[in-house]
């Protein structure tokens, strides 16, 4: 161990502050579901669909759950908005952690923003950007 290891709660507070101040990526945002949840476990993220893809101008909501083991363990991510992507279970909306590189090769330094940005990127890659999408606004 060469660096001080930031404990879960302080790490989540850092992420929250970054999200609140809007310092992160413009196309993604996230916030606490319940401002009274002292354990900061449940979050909602939004992703603005990338341009030049079937997702352009769509806004997707995802639920993010950070367990007690976060950030040792990756968060679990589930789409609320219906979306057709190879890494998303088409009945539950759950993101298959083995199919999203940043979740599969999770590292301690990764954040929820990383996950949202990577989900957005996966919407825009050539093999996914033209996938037919369910009606806008539908939910799982």
């Amino acid at each position, binding site marked *: 161990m060469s*660096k001080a290891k930031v404990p879960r709660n*302080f790490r989540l*507070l850092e992420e929250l502050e970054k999200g609140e101040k809007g310092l992160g990526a413009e196309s993604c945002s996230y916030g606490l579901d319940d401002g009274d949840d002292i354990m900061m476990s449940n979050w909602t993220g939004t992703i603005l669909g990338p341009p030049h893809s079937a997702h352009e101008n769509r806004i997707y909501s995802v639920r993010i759950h950070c367990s007690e083991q976060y950030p040792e363990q990756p968060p679990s991510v589930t789409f609320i908005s219906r979306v057709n992507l190879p890494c998303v279970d088409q009945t539950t909306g759950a993101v298959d952690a083995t199919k999203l590189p940043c979740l599969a090769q999770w590292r301690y330094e990764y954040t929820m923003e990383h996950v949202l940005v990577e989900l957005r990127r996966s919407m825009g890659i050539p093999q996914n950007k033209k996938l037919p999408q369910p009606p806008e606004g539908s939910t799982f």
Partner: protein
Amino acid sequence: MALPKRIIKETERLVAEPVPGIEAVPHEDNLRYFDVSIHGPAQSPYEGGVFKLELFLPEDYPMTPPKIRFLTKIYHPNIDRLGRICLDVLKANWSPALQIRTILLSIQALLGAPNPDDPLANDVAQRWKEDEPGAIATAREWTQKHAAP
């Protein structure tokens, strides 16, 4: 990198000469991470309560202040719903000569002397200014409900 001498000394002293009404115990797997409890000061609405906090000494400590927050719910104008604390010595007025013990004492003092003019929890501060007896009563209720020892 081994734990800096400063942190080792401070931890030793916290154990050897504990501050009355304050406890700070490092986690075994992370010696920069402390479980803290603070007793509500006498003659304050927090009297009789034991408040749990967590404290973390960041990489640059003591050049940067420790990070601290309440884990016990508390009704106080300078502490928000997530337990974050608004206190000058934790921000701009931090000095590397300050220590964990002095900071925890400052927090205990803050419980005894809420400052609604420098609020973190706006709704609480508002109430504190408009209806102080009512706010104090709520603070007392919350202490009994959430901070019972």
